[in-house]
């Protein structure tokens, strides 16, 4: 199985955040995400259970194991996308 591209991972990350936390309709960050800009994760207020729900969606999407502190360590959506990309690349290597 080929490793998903950064664009594919980003689409999946944004979709998970949107479906679970309605991110694209959030006026603070939605327009920037639709434009393809990066968004700081600190600007997205999520309770821990919502975050776990997003993590589970991403785990299932990419068949990886992802811990909460790994996600919390990322400062932006692009950082999270890169982290998942690195995990997938590590698995493919």
């Amino acid at each position: 199985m080929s490793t998903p591209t950064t664009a594919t991972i980003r689409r999946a990350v944004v979709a998970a955040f949107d479906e679970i936390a309605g991110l694209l309709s959030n006026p603070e960050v939605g327009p920037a995400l639709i434009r393809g800009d990066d968004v700081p994760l600190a600007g997205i207020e999520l309770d821990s259970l919502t975050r776990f729900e997003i993590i589970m969606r991403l785990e299932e999407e990419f068949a990886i194991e992802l811990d909460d502190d790994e996600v919390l360590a990322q400062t932006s959506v692009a950082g999270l996308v890169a982290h998942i990309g690195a995990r997938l690349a590590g698995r493919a290597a």
Partner: protein
Amino acid sequence: MRVEIRDDPADILRSPALDVAPYGARHAALALRLGLDLSATVDALEHIPLALDRARHPPVRRAIAGLIAAASPDIRAELPALVARHFAPFLRSGHLEAMTGVVQPCVADLLARLAGFEIGLGPGTLVSRIFSQALGPARRRRMEDEIRELRARIARAFPATGEDERGARLALAILGHDALTGTLGSSLAALLPRDAPRPLAGLDWEATPPRTGVPYIDRVAVADVQIGSRPVDRGETVRARLDVYEHAPAAARSAFFGAGTHLCLGRPLSLDLWAELVRLMAAAPTAARLLAAPMRHDDVFHIPERLEVEVSLP
């Protein structure tokens, strides 16, 4: 909000206004929200005193203390042979990965004797990550499966015992695993020289491990309270940093094992195990050098992923 008070963890652990973090409730909420079956995990936490508030923990603690008391005389008698067998690689020259080759098998052996059944947890086990707040859903599902397997092993080994005793044996299999593994591993990492090989017998082996595998314990305020000079509001989490004792004299470091109603029940056996290890190392004919000791990514325990050691004959 979490408050860290670094000066005297014992004040936190002894305070009647602070109680354990609600591990069981957190898992139950997570299971409900994510639609996961974490029932074995939640049930296991019902048998772990560290996860139970003051009202519920005394009978569970008594059950575990009873099992430890019953097993301890035989274990103490076997400790010299157990330590000699598992730490034998330190007595002959060669390259050694001491976590999977020495420390983990030694702890597994000790806990199997304590819990009374073959626990059979591999090096990558998630079972003792039960206190982690960071573990993602996929790993929690794997942990749930491992706990179910442990419960099945206990049921096969003790078909005639009740749920409470089975729960206590499960708690024994889970509780001390990473705490003791981390304490032994990180203490060896602190003591072994990194620059050049030195005779093991000449190292500074003290009566208490110099490092702890449990760097902190969280408590939650059940009432507004003053801890030292810091006011803590009801509902706030307070972190008692046990690793502050790593810089204390050896005699004071038994405080690694906590204080108050949740004082670690494994303290006497852990210290006895360390004493046997010290006896063995202080008479070892070999020299050793630590090549690498990367730490495991872990939000609860301080535990080396690997301990790469070069052992030589001087």
